[in-house]
Structures are given as C-alpha cells and as structure tokens.
C-alpha cells in the first residue's frame, strides 16, 4: 500500500479546502441559518412538536444530512473532475498507485471536508435550538458513513462527467429532490399513506431516519434497516468505483 501517495492526495485536497476556508464555511453556515429562520421560526412556530420534539430541533438532523450529502458529492466530484479538466490527471495515471489508494485519498478528503461542515452546522444549530444527542456514537457513525458513501458517489459522478454542466446535473436533478423528499423537514408519518409507501423507495429516507434516531431516538424506519441501507449504498458505490478503475472507463484508454 502506497500510504505516501494516499496522504499526498489527501493533503493536497485538504489544502484546497483550507485555501478557500471562508467560502467553504460561510455558505453552509449562512444557508443553515436561513433554514432555521424560515423553517424553524416562521413555519415552525405554526407547527407543534413532532413526536415530542420541537420542530426547530426536529429539522437539525435533516439539515445536517442535506448539507453533508450535497457537500460530499460536490467535493469528491469536483476533486476528481478538476484534474481531468485541466489535464493533471496524467500524473495520477502515471504514478505507482492503485485505484484503492486514489479513492482513499480523494474520497477521504471529500468526506473529511463534508464532515467538517456537518459539525459546523451542528454547532450553528446550538445557537438556534436546544438539542440533546441521545446516541452520540451512533450519530458519528451515521455521519461518517454518509460522508464516505456520498463522497464515493460524487467520485463516480466526477469520473463520468464530461463537462461542468454534467457535474451539476446529478446533484441538482436527483440528489437535491431525494434529500428534500427524504424527510429532511418532516416526519414520513406526516404524509398520506400513498406517499409514505412511495417514500420507502427513496434511499435518503433511511439515512435521515437513522441519523434522526441518533439524535432523538425517533425513527421513520427501523434503525437496522437504516444501517443496512447505508451499508448497501456504500457497497454499491465501492463496486462501481472498482469497476471504473478495472475497466479504465472514462480515464484510461
């Protein structure tokens, strides 16, 4: 295992993050604050508690998930797309590194950044609402797994994308709707029965539900189902990444 290469990629990617630290942090903190103002204060005041949790607190796990998922995807997809775009991928391809090492470097850095932002949002939320975390270890586990699996997914998008529009396409057209409809801002039980059934086909529901359970002990779906779902998604993405490198798809002719 070329640990030196993994750490080189990781450090290189993290340097980019710290170089643009202000914009990396201000934007998620600002948008989270806006969500709290709009959903928490304006709308939340008209919604009573959800299963004994104030609406402002109820949306915190969903908000963190929303940001963490989109950040993981955009960080990882940009991280690998940019070298392709500017041509520096030649160095990666000619280096004595395996696919696993490249993925560990890029996905590790993207997941770290997303997690960093997730924690910042959590801290921000303490200023708006009272939250107690029922299962802190489970919360961290869900956060880490979500960051890694979505960073893997982002990595695949970055490899696939042929231009900047395509880079935005999947996150905008697929991920954002799935996250919004995945119970970020509501409990699935609040929906009419038909929509409850439809929601069960949305993989994000399981992640948000599991994450919310770690905070409040409340779930839309059993916690084990959530764990299986995220493990399954991670495995699927890993398999896809393995195939990409094996076949050289869109990277090595």
């Amino acid at each position, binding site marked *: 295992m070329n640990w*030196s*290469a993994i750490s*080189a990629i990781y*450090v*290189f990617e993290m*340097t980019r993050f710290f*170089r643009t630290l202000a914009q990396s942090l201000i934007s998620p903190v600002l948008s989270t604050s806006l969500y709290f103002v709009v959903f928490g204060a304006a709308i939340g005041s008209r919604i009573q508690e959800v299963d004994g949790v104030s609406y402002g607190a109820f949306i915190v796990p969903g908000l963190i998930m929303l940001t963490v998922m989109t950040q993981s995807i955009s960080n990882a997809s940009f991280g690998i797309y940019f*070298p392709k775009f500017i*041509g*520096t991928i030649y160095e990666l391809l000619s280096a004595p590194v395996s696919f696993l090492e490249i993925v560990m470097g890029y996905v590790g850095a993207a997941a770290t950044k997303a997690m960093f932002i997730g924690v910042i949002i959590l801290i921000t939320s303490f200023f708006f609402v009272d939250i107690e975390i029922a299962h802190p270890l489970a919360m961290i586990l869900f956060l880490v797994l979500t960051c890694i699996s979505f960073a893997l997914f982002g990595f695949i998008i970055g490899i696939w994308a042929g231009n900047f529009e395509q880079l935005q396409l999947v996150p905008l057209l697929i991920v954002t709707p799935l996250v919004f409809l995945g119970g970020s801002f509501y409990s699935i039980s609040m929906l009419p029965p038909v929509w409850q059934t439809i929601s069960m086909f949305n993989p994000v529901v399981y992640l948000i539900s599991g994450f919310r359970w770690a905070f409040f002990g409340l779930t839309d779906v059993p916690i084990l189902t959530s764990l299986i779902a995220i493990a399954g998604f991670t495995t699927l993405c890993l398999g896809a990444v393995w195939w990409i490198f094996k076949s050289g798809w869109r990277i090595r002719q």
Partner: protein
Amino acid sequence: MPPILSIQNLRKAYSGGFEALKGVSLDIEEGEIIALLGPNGAGKTTLISTVCGITMPTSGTVSVAGFDILTDYRQARSLIGLVPQEIALEPFERVINTVRFSRGLFGKGRKDAAVEDILKRLSLWDKRDNQIRELSGGMKRRVLIAKALAHEPRVLFLDEPTAGVDVELRKDMWDIVEQLRADGVTTILTTHYIEEAEAIADRVGVINKGEILLVEDKDKLMARMGQKQLDVQLTTQLDAIPEALAGYDLALSQDGWTLVYSYDVNAERTGITKLLTDVANAGLQLRDVVTRQSSLEDIFVSLVHENAEVTV
C-alpha cells in the same frame, strides 16, 4: 548490461479502431539520451503514454529495469518521470506544494532537501511560494520538470519539451538534460526539431504512422544529413557529362541543363572551387548556381517512401 527500458512489439489500437502503434520495438540503454523524431500524429505521445501507464497497451510488452509495466506497475512507474507536452498544472497551488505532492504520489517520503535541490537546479527556488498561475509559460514548464524529477526517477520522458519555448529556455532545457545525464538519468525526448536532437541526443529514432522507421547514432545520422548538393545550371544543353569533368561525382539532370554535384559539407575541402574552374575551362557557361542541403525531412520522406513500398 540489460537495457533500462525495453519495448517489445508494442501495439496500441484505440477504441475507435485507430492503430496508433503498430508493433514498436526499442531498447534503451541506461544513461543514454534518445530523441524520437516524427511528425504530428506519428505516435510519439501514444508511445510515451503507454509506457507511463496513461494508456493501456493492446499487445506487446514493456519493462523498466526488468519490471513489467503491467504486472509490476508499482516498481516500473516509480522509476519513471514524465514531463507532458501540454502544460497541465493546478493554477492555484503553490510551486513547492505541487512538487512535494508529486514526490509523495510516487511513494517517496517527504524530504525537503531533495525538493529544494530540484527547485534550485531549475531556477524555481525564488518562486517556490508563488501560485502557479502567477508564473510565465517557461516557468510553468520548469515546474512540470521539477514535478517529474521530484521522486528521483531513473528514466525521464520529455514530450516535446521545447515546443513553443524561447531560445534561452530551450538552451536551459538542454543543460538540464545534460546535468541529468551526469547523474545517470536516462532521457527519452520527442521533438519536431532536428537541432534539438543534434544538440543533446546520443541516438535518434524516427517514428511515423505508429512505426519506428530508424534508430541510429546521432553522429551517423548527422553524417547522412551533412550531404549537400550543388546544381550548376548551364546556358547550353548537354547530352553527357564532358570528359574534362569525369573525375567529379557528377550527375546530369534529365533535361541536360544542369550538372548536379554532391559533396560533404563537413569535409575539409568541398571541391567546389575546382569544379567551377574546370566547368569554365571545359567551355561551359553558367546560368545559375544553387545549393541544396538534405534535411531530416528528405531523410524522413525517403524513409516514409521506402516504408510505403515495403507495405504495398
């Protein structure tokens, strides 16, 4: 001593069916500098890309210091440094960081002294904390070389290192290659320019349409290129070369209006003065005198021509 780089019957066909390399074989000795000459689209870059792992070979084998580039790719690639043709650098990164990155990527631990040495040799030390976008084109090329040397490779590929580079930088590049040779680094460079091969290479390979047409010591090639022709155009048409001029290596043009004299430009005496005197003494009047040098292009064209006849 076994060759440091051994390419055997290497073929590369792209997915569209285009065959960029048609069975290339080439052995390169450790410490030599070899220049690959060829027109655009000849397969030079594909050859380099395949050896370096950027494209996958369709068939054939390549080994670096005995390590196969596919089965022992880690050992093989860690011995190779590549300077690509296009300037591809992360614009916002600092010079020193991007060189450290390259060193780490190729499996070498952080060693600031080594990075400092490389940056100083490439006159980049003063620019080490600059962002790459702030550098001139020539400086960026130096950064590419610094990155390629960061892991102390034994084989260096330079893909058209001096395309679009000013004269001074070109000279600097040649000096750098010469220094590397002193360190025992084997260098393979591709170029359009015969002067470049002449200035630094030990051997010259000519490649066209995915095939190596010739690999020869530079000196021998230069001797072939040293041939020059003198066309002596006459005011009268001749049927044959006059008796008085029989001692010269002369040919008569088909129309009989021109005497063609071949000579070695590097020779101490070319014999031109004596020839022209004898031409005048033979009672012939000159209309014009033209000299032509056989260039790489001539050699190249004749090679391509021969090549075409063989394949027909």
